[in-house]
C-alpha cells in the first residue's frame, strides 16, 4: 500500500482553473463519499487546486485510489447554499471537493 501522505502519484490532469464556476454533481451513490450531501447541485467557484490525492472512495474499499484525483477548494456563497442564511451577503463557505464530483457550470 502507498503511504497516505506522499504526493508523487500518477495523477489525472486538472480540468478546472482558479476562478472557474463549477457545479457539484447531484448524485447519491453508495460507499464512502467525501462530498457533503448538502452541497450537491450547488454552483461555486474554484478557489485553488490543493493537489492531487488518491481517491478516498477507492481507498475506503481497500484499493489504491490511483491515479490520484485533483482536489479543489471550492467557494460557495452562504446565501446560495442556505436560502434562510442571515449573515452578510459576502459570507462564503469553502469545501474541498475532488474533481470527479465537479462539472463546468
Amino acid at each position, binding site marked *: *500500500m502507498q503511504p*497516505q501522505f506522499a504526493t508523487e502519484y500518477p495523477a489525472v490532469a486538472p480540468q478546472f482553473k482558479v476562478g472557474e464556476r463549477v457545479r457539484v454533481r447531484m448524485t*447519491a451513490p453508495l460507499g464512502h463519499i467525501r462530498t457533503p450531501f448538502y452541497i450537491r447541485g450547488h454552483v461555486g467557484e474554484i478557489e485553488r487546486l490543493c493537489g492531487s490525492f488518491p481517491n478516498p472512495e477507492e481507498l475506503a474499499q481497500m484499493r489504491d485510489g490511483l491515479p490520484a484525483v485533483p482536489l479543489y477548494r471550492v467557494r460557495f456563497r452562504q446565501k446560495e447554499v*442556505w436560502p434562510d442564511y442571515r449573515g452578510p451577503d459576502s459570507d462564503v463557505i469553502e469545501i474541498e471537493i475532488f474533481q470527479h464530483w465537479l462539472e463546468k457550470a
Partner: protein
Amino acid sequence: MIERSHHDMGGLPAGKVEPTEHDYPEWERRVDAMVQLLRLGGKITVDELRKNIEQLPPEAYDKLSYYDKWIASLTQTLIQRGLISTEELGRKMEEVAKRAAAVRD
C-alpha cells in the same frame, strides 16, 4: 434507495452543540495508539475507518461515543483486511470476559 447516509447530516436541524471534555481512559488511549500504528504501518487507511463508522446502524451511530465508534470500526476493518478472524476475536472476547468476571468475584 439510500439518498443520504445517516452520518451525512450537515445542515439538518439539530439541537445546541454542547462541548464536553473528559480524561481519556486507558482503553481509549490504546484504541488511538492501535489506529495510529496500523495506519502508519500501512495496514489500514483512515478512509476504511471512516467507511466503517459511516456504515454503523443509525441508532448505534447516534448512541456510541467517539472511541466506541473507533473500536467498532477498527474491528470491522481488521476483519475485512484479514488481520484477525471473527472466530479469533470471539474467542479472545470470551477469554477477556471470563478474566474480568474472575476479578469481580
